[in-house]
């Protein structure tokens, strides 16, 4: 507790600094601020934002990391890591998280590419409205999609209701929402627009004359998609895909809302360790692993996107 007080003090003094320095500039003649600015080194101006950032963001992060090295028995050791890495629940959560994220990303890329191409290149009435709706969709909370899917495929949802009404059976055939496939479906549904957004932007830059010239040269639509559209969409695909991959790795709401008991991802594991089992060191270890994967993927994405010239 005492340790939290230390950063607070510099934080407060730091935020006050701009007030103090802007104060005299309003009352003194115009020359004064220039002279003052010359006396104060540039880096001083960077201190307040850096201090605020450190306080509200980096410090809690550091606490999480610190906690992950502090087993309940006291002291500092890597024992929590050993324990967590050895546990079956962590390994299966890691596997589940990675394959769900990779699967959702691949699904989003394929579905997003096809949908974006239809919206961009096949003129149909309402196409513009659909493109607009995709922007709105990005602002929806992720659990909303899961809730909507529950209404359709849930045990008492639309699809099962129609089935039981028609056949007189007591249960409908759709029972996949609480399985990993339900999570996969929900994640693909929710994250596909995140791939489509950069793709639509890229397609709007693409010169339609290129497509026309390609077809006049004898290329069928499939060849045009493969050799003209796809190469030019690669940076957008890389950008959208890596964004979705990171977001899927960290997705919490969708997994929680499907109520899939068997589907434990890393964020779910953090939640259950911290809130349900009060095992903070283990929760923090999982969190650190999650952060490491996210940061690693992000760096990879930056490297890739620089390579392809995005």
């Amino acid at each position, binding site marked *: 507790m005492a340790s939290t007080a230390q950063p607070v003090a510099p934080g407060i003094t730091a935020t006050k600094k701009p007030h103090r320095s802007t104060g005299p500039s309003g009352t003194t003649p115009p020359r004064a601020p220039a002279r003052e600015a010359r006396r104060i080194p540039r880096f001083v101006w960077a201190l307040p934002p850096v201090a605020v950032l450190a306080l509200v963001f980096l410090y809690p992060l550091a606490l999480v990391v610190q906690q992950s090295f502090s087993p309940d028995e006291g002291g500092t050791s890597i024992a929590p890591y050993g324990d967590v890495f050895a546990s079956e629940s962590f390994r299966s959560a890691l596997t589940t998280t990675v394959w769900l994220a990779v699967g959702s990303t691949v699904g989003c890329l394929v579905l997003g590419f096809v949908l974006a191409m239809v919206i961009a290149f096949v003129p149909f009435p309402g196409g513009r409205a659909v493109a607009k709706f995709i922007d709105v969709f990005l602002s929806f909370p992720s659990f909303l999609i899961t809730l909507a899917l529950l209404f359709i495929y849930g045990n008492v949802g639309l699809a099962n209701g129609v089935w039981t009404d028609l056949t007189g059976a007591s249960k409908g055939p759709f029972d996949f929402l609480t399985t990993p496939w339900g999570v996969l479906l929900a994640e693909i549904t929710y994250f596909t627009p995140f791939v489509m957004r950069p793709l639509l932007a890229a397609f709007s830059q693409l*010169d339609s*004359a*290129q497509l*026309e*010239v*390609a*077809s*006049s*040269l*004898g*290329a*069928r639509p499939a*060849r045009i998609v493969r*050799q*003209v559209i796809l*190469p*030019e969409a690669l940076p957008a695909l890389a950008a959208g895909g890596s964004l979705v991959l990171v977001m899927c790795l960290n997705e919490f709401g969708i997994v929680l809302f499907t109520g899939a008991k068997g589907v434990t991802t890393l964020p779910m594991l953090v939640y259950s360790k911290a809130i349900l089992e009060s095992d903070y060191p283990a929760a923090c270890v999982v969190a650190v692993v999650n952060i490491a994967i996210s940061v690693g993927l992000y760096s990879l994405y930056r490297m890739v996107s620089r390579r392809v010239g995005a």
Partner: protein
Amino acid sequence: MTGGERSVRSGIRFDQVSVAYGGNTVLDRLDLTVEPGEVMALLGPSGSGKTTALRAVAGFVQPASGRVYLGDRDVTGLPPHKRGIGMVVQQYALFPHMRVQDNVAFGLKARKVAKDGIPERVAEALDMVGMAAYAKRYPRELSGGQQQRVAIARALAIRPGVLLLDEPLSALDAQLRSGMLAELARLHRELPDVSILYVTHDQVEALTLADRIAVMDKARLQDCGTPQDLYRRPRTEFTASFVGNANLLPVTVADGADTVDFAGRALDVPTGEVSRGATATLCVRPHLVGLGDGPNALNGTITEVQWRGSTHRLYVDIDGHRVKADLKELRETPALGDRVTLHFAAEDAVLLPAGAAEGAGGGTDG
């Protein structure tokens, strides 16, 4: 050469081709034949329907009525990739992620030309436009003129019977343009069997390159003929003013032989088939108008003087009608408001019967 290229044939024929977007007719019953090996320029202002006509040949717009033929084959319902046409557009449209050689090879691969023959054909096409040294470059590493050469090589590599050029020089600056114009003329001499449809709004390009010019305006063919024919003997007012920017004066054919009445003055002009007493339009090119007294003298007041280096352009008001005269650079620049006399030779004038303003293009091809 290869079996897959038998679809290549030369010559284009429009048979009553109409194109409409919504309720808006953008091409109205076009009848036009481009002979094998002929360069036909489609000349007109923007919105005249010339680009639409080209796109109908390429297969990018579907005619509302009428047929399009390549050679003797009806291609009206054929998708673009089955037409075997070479196409070059204003903004080059090179594939940015492919090297120059891959751009040129694209059509050959798409048309399933035997793999071992492709490098040779790419080299041949690049040689033809003088770009062989740039085969390994990317389009972004080339200038506009070089990119357009590559685009032409790409279109020629598939050895098309028909080459469509859609404002190919409009994105280039003036100096490059005249160089490329000469280049295109040379290419056509080297490929005498290829029919070229050349869409442009620039009369110099059309006059320089074309065997025949089809003048388009308001979705319709206005006139069609050889460049000399259209320039010296325009059949419509639109052709006269769009090609060569002619003076157009309203006249009435007088009773005397080869005499017309212009604002109370009698002028000697060959009246041809225009009947006596009829109203008509007198057409004289600005550079054929002379300063000073002479045959067909006209007095007027100078309203504007433009110095254009080697020439002076005078705008002279003659009883409310504005006459343009392009004169070899004058030693003494005339002042605004000066009274001057202009004249022109009878054989330099063309008389257009009234009603020739529009839509006279119906049967002019051939």
